[in-house]
């Protein structure tokens, strides 16, 4: 009897059998409230689209998949209990997505210790050579975003005087040091560096200070209403004219577009804004399947279709499909078994069959082939630290808020900026 009680009190329920039909859960660990509340929905949309893809194509070896939000509020203090509660109360977690720069440092160790594969949207450099085995990153480090912004300003637009206006949150401030290092080394000038508080109702004094430095361009990432308020005040205090501004990949986002276009007008946004984004073509069979799934996810999350051109949504969707195919390939739903296979599904091995959808992948695996998923976001190239990078494109918005590619940085340009900025 005592043995029975002790067994029942084990801290983790045993892993469900691969042959059963028990449900599996994907945890979306991200801010859904607070100033970075715009991030969580993009990742939740990725999860719902992936779950739809899996569940309409035979589930994962019969196991249906669902998504659950775990709100970190963008604060480590809230993120830790959220992550602990997630792993303690869900023995059927197959993967976690989200883990932004706001909370990655505090939640990644918890998730890794629980042996749950995760696909994180953090650009923090501490994960460039991470030892966490279950960590996967399908986006470049933030410092590379900053380097791409520098390249866009100096080489593509030929601006030289640059104002840095970033939110004072952890995620946004990660862009500042690499930009400050690279700009002067490449012949540019940082006219001012402002760390603005995200929850202020106005920034007029800050804008007046910035305008007095006469920059050619503003680099920015201040999420929530901050960028909208700041840029509207730039327009007001600069005689009705905006200064060109270049955003990080996080500003390529329907919420950011809605906020800023509402404040400064669509035409002003279209004509003055550029951003750097992770190289994505938004085309191909993997992308078409993703869009169909995203549209289907609207029944559970009406805003889901708005994320069809958000690179992070595409990449997290791909990550989840990689995990699902790894489970099929190993015939296991035990993360300790299939985790190592994820990298192989992403990178492919010699002779691997290229697949674009979950169904194609399962069919190929069932016929004895090894597969490489080239999904919605294109090919994955994990390095030894499970970091995958795909280069950068330069983008702008059209009047409907769709991303339009306007250029890209050559490898030589990128290498030169990275070297100047001290990037690895």
């Amino acid at each position: 009897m005592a043995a029975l009680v002790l067994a029942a009190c084990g801290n983790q329920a045993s892993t469900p059998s691969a042959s059963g039909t028990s449900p599996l859960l994907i945890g979306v660990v991200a801010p859904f409230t607070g100033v970075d509340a715009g991030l969580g929905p993009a990742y939740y949309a990725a999860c719902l689209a992936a779950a739809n893809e899996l569940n309409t194509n035979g589930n994962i070896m019969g196991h249906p998949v669902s998504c659950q939000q775990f709100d970190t509020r963008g604060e480590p203090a809230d993120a830790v209990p959220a992550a602990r509660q997630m792993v303690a109360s869900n023995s059927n977690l197959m993967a976690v997505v989200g883990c932004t720069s706001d909370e990655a440092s505090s939640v990644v160790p918890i998730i890794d210790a629980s042996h749950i594969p995760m696909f994180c949207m953090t650009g923090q450099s501490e994960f460039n050579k991470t030892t966490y085995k279950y960590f996967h990153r399908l986006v470049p480090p933030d410092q590379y975003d900053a380097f791409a912004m520098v390249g866009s300003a100096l080489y593509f637009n030929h601006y030289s005087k640059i104002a840095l206006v970033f939110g004072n949150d952890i995620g946004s401030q990660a862009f500042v040091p690499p930009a400050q290092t690279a700009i002067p080394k490449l012949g540019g000038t940082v006219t001012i560096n402002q760390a603005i508080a995200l929850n202020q109702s106005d920034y007029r004094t800050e804008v007046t200070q910035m305008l007095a430095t006469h920059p050619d361009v503003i680099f920015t990432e201040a999420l929530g209403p901050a960028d909208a308020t700041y840029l509207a005040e730039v327009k007001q205090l600069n005689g009705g004219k905006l200064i060109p501004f270049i955003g990080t990949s996080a500003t390529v986002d329907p919420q950011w577009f809605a906020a800023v276009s509402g404040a400064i007008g669509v035409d002003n946004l279209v004509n003055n804004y550029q951003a750097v984004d992770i190289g994505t073509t938004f085309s191909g069979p993997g992308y078409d399947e993703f869009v169909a799934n995203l549209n289907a996810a609207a029944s559970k999350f009406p805003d889901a279709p708005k994320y069809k051109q958000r690179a992070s949504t595409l990449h997290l969707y791909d990550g989840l499909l990689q995990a699902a195919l790894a489970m099929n390939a190993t015939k296991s739903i035990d993360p300790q078994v299939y985790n190592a296979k994820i990298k192989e599904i992403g990178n492919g091995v010699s002779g691997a069959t290229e697949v674009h959808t979950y169904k194609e992948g399962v069919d190929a695996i069932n016929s004895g082939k090894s597969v490489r998923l080239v999904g919605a976001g294109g090919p994955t190239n994990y390095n030894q630290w499970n970091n995958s990078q795909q280069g950068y494109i330069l983008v702008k918005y059209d009047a409907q808020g769709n991303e339009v590619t306007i250029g890209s940085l050559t490898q030589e340009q990128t290498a030169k900026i990275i070297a100047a900025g001290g990037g690895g």
Partner: protein
Amino acid sequence: MDLFIAAFGFGLVSMSVIAIAAVGFTMQFGITNMINLAYAEIMISSAYAAYAFNRSGINIWVSMIAGALFGAVFSFLLNRLLYAPFQRKGTSLIGMVIVSLAAGLVIANVLLPIVGYFNVSYKQDPGPTIRLGAIDLTTVQVLIIALAVSLMLLIHLLLTFTRLGKAMRATAANPTLARNCGIPTRQVIDIVWLITGALCGIAGVVAAMNSESFAASSGAGYLITIIAAAVLGGAGQPYGAMIGAVLIGEITELSAAVISPQYKGVIAFAILVLVMVLRPQGLLARQGALAAAG
């Protein structure tokens, strides 16, 4: 030098927004003995109420009336349905603070799924820029300042020269004695919630107009500033809240011009702490709530 003058001008706008909000907040405390931490969430809810009208093509200044009405009715109902029953049971002041904190969280979390995650902006024409030396203000900002001054004058006239104002002050000073003197204190308190709720609603709309963009999460940012202005001036004192708003508004903007904008909140609240250490009752507090109104 121009930057300091410009910052002073921006401070006038900030203090106007804070003053409207802080006077309503401090009157609620002064007269009904309720520190209403749900105040900022009602502000942002009212801003969205005005937004609904504004997006249907109604001028923002007319929509502001809808925001004020929403704030008034919401605050009245919140008191009648939630706060008053707890107060009648003798819940302590700190207990009421916790109740209002919970109410604020409930409002915020109900509001979010209704209005969504997206930031929104009013359709408003800022009008021509009015230049006074180094101070550049839009017509809308000048009107916000004028509105704040008008509302402060009205509050002064209400408290000083009307029977209702005298009844409010009597209720604030000693509700039992006021009731025994024939003052219908319950009705007075209802009216206070309606008036302060309207101020709360107007404050939410002007704050959103001034910010150009707002979201459901914007409320949390307002509350700290409002409390700071109210406490700095003397909790429960409408005139104190006005002075607190002036100081917080100007200190915030001028400190941004002197040092990094990153620290402007820190400087404002450091001065608040200093005042609290040197004069814990606030700048204007005498004996009893609303004493300064007399």
